[in-house]
């Protein structure tokens, strides 16, 4: 099949941010997203259990430009105060126009 290279942006962090992050990525131009519940630990050793909810993983297939814009927003507004990480990985899709 003919595939198109795009970028998968993965954001992992506090579940409370769910609605806010969805708004961010949609505003930045993402056409869809997928959310998975998860748990984890990182440099903040945040253990909050029931009271602040678990972590979530938000994944979206986007163009490199959108991914870059979102990394910027995350790094300015979220990384300083919230337990959040983000990374990019290369993916290939068909129907590439669906995502951009």
């Amino acid at each position: 099949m003919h595939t198109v290279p795009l970028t998968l942006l993965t954001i992992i962090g506090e579940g409370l941010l769910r609605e806010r992050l969805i708004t961010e990525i949609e505003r930045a131009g993402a056409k869809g997203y997928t959310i998975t519940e998860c748990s984890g630990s990182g440099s903040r050793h945040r253990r909050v259990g029931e009271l602040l909810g678990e972590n979530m993983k938000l994944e979206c297939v986007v163009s490199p430009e959108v991914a870059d814009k979102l990394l910027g927003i995350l790094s300015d507004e979220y990384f300083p105060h919230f337990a959040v990480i983000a990374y990019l990985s290369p993916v290939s899709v068909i129907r590439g126009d669906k995502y951009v």
Partner: protein
Amino acid sequence: MLEVLRINLCSPISLAFVLGLFARIIRSELSLPRELYASLSIYLLLALGLKGGVELSHASMAELAWPAVVTLVLGVITPCTAYLVLRRIGRFSIADSAGIAAHYGSVSAVTFIAAQQFVQTLGFPAEGFMPTLLTLLESPGIHVALGIGAVQTARMASQPRADGSHPVERRPLKEVLHEVLTARSMILLVGGLACGFVMGEKGYEPVKPFFEGMFKGALTLFLLEMGLAAGARLGDLKSTGLFLLAFGMIMPILHGSLGVFLGHWAGLSIGGATVLGAMAASASYIAAPPAVRMTLPEANPTLYLTAALAITFPFNIVLGIPIYFQLARMLAG
């Protein structure tokens, strides 16, 4: 007093809490499914609301007026005293002080229920409209504390920062207000009150075995989970320091005594004043944490969660409630 303490300690509620605590201390793998915890808390809040609503349909608005007023007064005073103590004496940052104060200004539904059960067991049932007061106390304290935090931070921010960093953008208050008013616990409590009020004794009858017969058992299971959650935070006590430990036990006594006094003054029975005291003394760990986390992200969650859950909650359950009860009894003469 000792007898009262013993009865309280041997209640299923206290014992389940201790069991959960103990399980965490010996590092047991025991844990309740998160969904069970969520389901139990939905059940408890709704049951509380329904029952309160049914009883509210018997109450006259006159009886309710003064207790409602003093409850709102408590909702304004307690976050301020907590903030001042934390900021001035404890020397916590603005964000941390406001964050912790938001918890102590609000109320813990489980502490409320435990107090209610306690006075009932001793033969001094609280007024039937107490759940109505619970809903009144839930949110004002959070807003007052978050408001203080916002104002103080703004004052600081108007002075240029040394490191040139920007303060976090504040969320519009309307958004936060909407969040707190439509929060799970609010809907269940207030909604339950309204439903109970409308259905009345007769409509309540067929669902009573579920919402009333199972209540204490479900509460026991819930307290087991609370014990587990508190136990998981015990380790943080070291890092949060002695001041917070003392704060978490003395503040409740002050707020609790104030609550009992005001309750007595407003005409509540011994049971009612005790429960109002426990409400004032308690720190929220359902409504407050997410509101604070989202609005004051600079506040350290370890501080407020540990204080509310691992210090004040067990303190109230085990020692506080009997103390407020003695006080209410003394006042009543």
